[in-house]
């Protein structure tokens, strides 16, 4: 029988970086298909293509055997494809009914006039489908997160009414906000969905995926690296598929990792907590040491890095630098205590788009190219030129707008900005290689090795497990806001990715 939804050789590129590289998979009628993969493996990009938010550069999407193209999410909805988004995608200021039928009110709104009873009736029908007790007239703002997710599910279900064909419901990380009983109700929903629709279940919690899905696809680096029947698959097999081949130590310059056991402790984090995100996190970072933090979405590691740099407040616990406790009310305090931060959102928080390469380099420490309060143009040109040469930044000259450079070169400008500051002691790298091509990634690795050699203390949130293991001296695995386990990763006797993954998911 033909697949309800099929994708052949799907390719998608962003600014030269390949997000999806010839992915093919299919969903059969009344089937639940699991989709797993590490961060940055291309899962969310694939879902966005399926729901018409992104258009593919190559490859074809087939719906019940016919090729289809989705210009926007309403096209996908009309084709009966509904998605429960990972972050909330509901308008909290209006009622449940309005959210469910938003943009597709049908004849509940004729000539611009709302027929409330009809609107509520249609919404109630969707809620009944998922046996939810929520009333369609409640304003979403009053609902808990779990309830809001059920409304999103109902909204996805509504897709089916329009299309003449059985819907495909995509659930993106639905379990990350649910616990205990709520999990069970979700699984019951999925079983009920199985009768009337097909489901794509995306999650990083492998045992849940195995429990719910009939078949499981594994994505890695934008390619589908494996497909197994859930019954015959086991966690270890999935881990190995997810993590893939051992890449060469040479690529990560592992031989340049110096031992640091006698080096002085630069940074001490004691019982740091941020209510609702992470709690009781303690670790030390020595001079020249890279402490890698591994964890999936919702593990709290991103929030931890923001708190370390003062971008978000902490509830309790302390940070000690060179033995002195410090308090960060904002990133300004963090920088004055010698902290540096390479942000994940490079284009927003990293580079100052609109300013020149030189101006970006002197954002953190303008005093390095000034005499007294005034700017010294000659010295500034000299220093900027030196950084451009040293980090091999490909830019026509110092005056180019940094926004015109490629992702890799922009990241180098951000690195130069921090290196140019003489007080820099602790460097926080938040997904430093995200969205970079292979060449640029290697430059970053070399840069990290160089800085460690100079005694820099580094806290690393890497994109992939491989990167974390290769670059770090010590690895902290975080899960659900707590440090699950510490791994020592000296050069030569690195832990296996599989050992880490067990603790992460």
């Amino acid at each position, binding site marked *: 029988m033909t697949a309800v939804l099929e994708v052949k050789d799907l390719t998608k590129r962003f600014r030269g970086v390949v997000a999806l590289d010839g992915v093919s998979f299919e969903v059969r009628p009344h089937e639940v298909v699991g989709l797993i993969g590490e961060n940055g493996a291309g899962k969310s990009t694939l879902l966005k293509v399926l729901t018409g938010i992104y258009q593919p550069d190559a490859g074809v999407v087939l719906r019940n055997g016919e090729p289809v193209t989705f210009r926007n999410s309403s096209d996908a909805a009309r084709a009966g494809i509904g998605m429960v988004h990972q972050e909330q995608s509901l308008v909290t200021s209006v009622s449940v009914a309005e959210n469910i039928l938003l943009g597709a009110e049908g004849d509940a709104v004729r000539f611009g006039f709302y027929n409330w009873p009809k609107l509520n009736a249609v919404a109630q029908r969707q809620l009944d489908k998922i046996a939810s007790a929520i009333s369609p007239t409640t304003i979403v703002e009053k609902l808990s997160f779990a309830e809001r997710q059920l409304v999103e599910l109902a909204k996805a279900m509504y897709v089916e009414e329009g299309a003449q064909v059985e819907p495909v419901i995509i659930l993106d990380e639905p379990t990350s906000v649910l616990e205990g009983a709520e999990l069970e109700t979700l699984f019951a929903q999925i079983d009920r969905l199985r009768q009337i629709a097909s489901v794509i279940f995306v999650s990083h919690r492998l045992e849940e995926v195995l429990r719910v899905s009939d078949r499981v696809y594994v994505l890695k680096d934008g390619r589908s690296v494996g497909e197994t029947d859930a019954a015959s698959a086991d966690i270890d097999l999935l881990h190995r598929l997810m993590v893939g081949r051992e890449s060469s130590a040479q690529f990560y310059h592992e031989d340049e990792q110096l031992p640091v056991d006698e080096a002085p402790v630069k940074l001490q984090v004691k019982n740091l907590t941020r209510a609702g995100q992470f709690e009781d996190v303690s670790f030390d970072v020595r001079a020249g040491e890279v402490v890698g933090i591994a964890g999936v979405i919702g593990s709290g590691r991103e929030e931890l890095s923001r708190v370390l740099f003062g971008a978000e407040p902490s509830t309790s616990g302390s940070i000690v630098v060179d033995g002195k406790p410090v308090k960060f009310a904002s990133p300004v305090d963090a920088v004055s205590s010698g902290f540096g931060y390479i942000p994940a959102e490079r284009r927003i928080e990293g580079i100052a788009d609109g300013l*020149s390469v*030189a*101006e970006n380099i002197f954002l953190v420490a303008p005093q390095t190219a000034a005499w007294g309060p005034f700017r010294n*143009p000659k010295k500034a040109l000299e220093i900027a030129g030196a950084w451009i040469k040293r980090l091999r930044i490909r830019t026509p000259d110092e005056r180019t707008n940094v926004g015109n450079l490629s992702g890799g070169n922009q990241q180098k400008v951000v690195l130069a900005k921090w290196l140019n500051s003489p007080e820099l002691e602790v460097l926080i790298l938040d997904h430093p290689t995200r969205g970079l091509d292979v060449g640029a990634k290697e430059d970053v690795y070399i840069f990290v090795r160089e800085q460690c050699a100079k005694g820099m203390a580094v806290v690393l949130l890497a994109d992939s497990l491989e990167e974390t293991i290769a670059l770090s001296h010590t690895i902290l695995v975080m899960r659900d806001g707590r440090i699950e386990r510490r791994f020592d990763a000296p050069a030569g006797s690195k832990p296996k990715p599989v050992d880490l993954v067990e603790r992460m998911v």
Partner: protein
Amino acid sequence: MNHIFRRRGIVAGGIALTLAAALIGCSSASDDSGSTGGTSDDVTAVQSIRSMSNPYHANWADGGALFGDWADVEVVTIVDEGDSQTQLSKIRALGAEGKVFALNVDPNDSSTTEAIVKAVTEAGGYVVTQWNKPDDLWPWDVSDNWVAHISFNGETSGEEVSQALFDAMGGSGNIIALQGILDNVPAKQRFAGLQKALEANPGIKLLADQTANWDRAEAFSVTQTLLSQYQGQVDGIWAANDNMALGAFEALTAAGLAGTIPIVGFDAVPEALENIQNSDETGYIATVSTDPWWQGGAGLSLAYQAATGKIKVSELSHEQRAFYGKQIVVTLDNVGDFTKAPLLDALKSDLENPFLRSQGPIS
């Protein structure tokens, strides 16, 4: 697009230097070229008013035209729509032509008056100003080019028009008063006139007085509020100008009391004159007119005669160079001769002797 070593920053520095160098040639505006002095027979007559479509100023301009016929001189009218900067720059432009001119002007506000008289002095023209003038600045302080200042004593006219209101009320009852902007000179004088009239009429009681800032819309809401506060006790409404009186009239109409309560105002605005003509329905019984035709004609004549040397400004007394003009209370019986321009011969004596209607020096 913008980068660190802005050449323009340095270029801007250069401009600053040249400007500093120019400091050497500094001088002061006051020692400008003095007035070309003297009079001449070839004088242009000019009148500067707010706008031709404002009836009060339109009558003023007709007065000026009457003077033109009388002295068979062509009269130039300049208009500024109430914008002081425009008034000032147009008067300055008069000087640019280099000819001697006689100017009769109604300055927008007292601070513009000073600038105007200085500009005219600088250009060697002759000017008569009316209404607004800085209290501590007199024509003789500035120059002979500022021939005279004419204003109107709010107190006497205030007393007279208040008396007209009290007579219409039969000498007894309560009134409410709508004040102009509290600190304006005309507002203070007119209210003082009302208080003097109140002393002379013990039967009349002032229930309340509130400012409505000469504005029609504010007068409407303040009257509405006071009417409701003193329900049924209000027997008369005194307003410091017609604009506010008309606002009060609309409030009375809204309350269904139009025509039952007498109202008085100032300025003889056409709408007020019309209401006075059928005062039995409107209850609008009196206003005060400064006779804009006289202001246009006599004022221009005084400036012109000074410019042609017929009047020697240096020989004029302080009382002649700053005097109060005559104000007339307009009621049903004399409203007729205020709705249309007077004939030339009615005004001829005033044109010959502009001081004919002087009510004494401005104190």
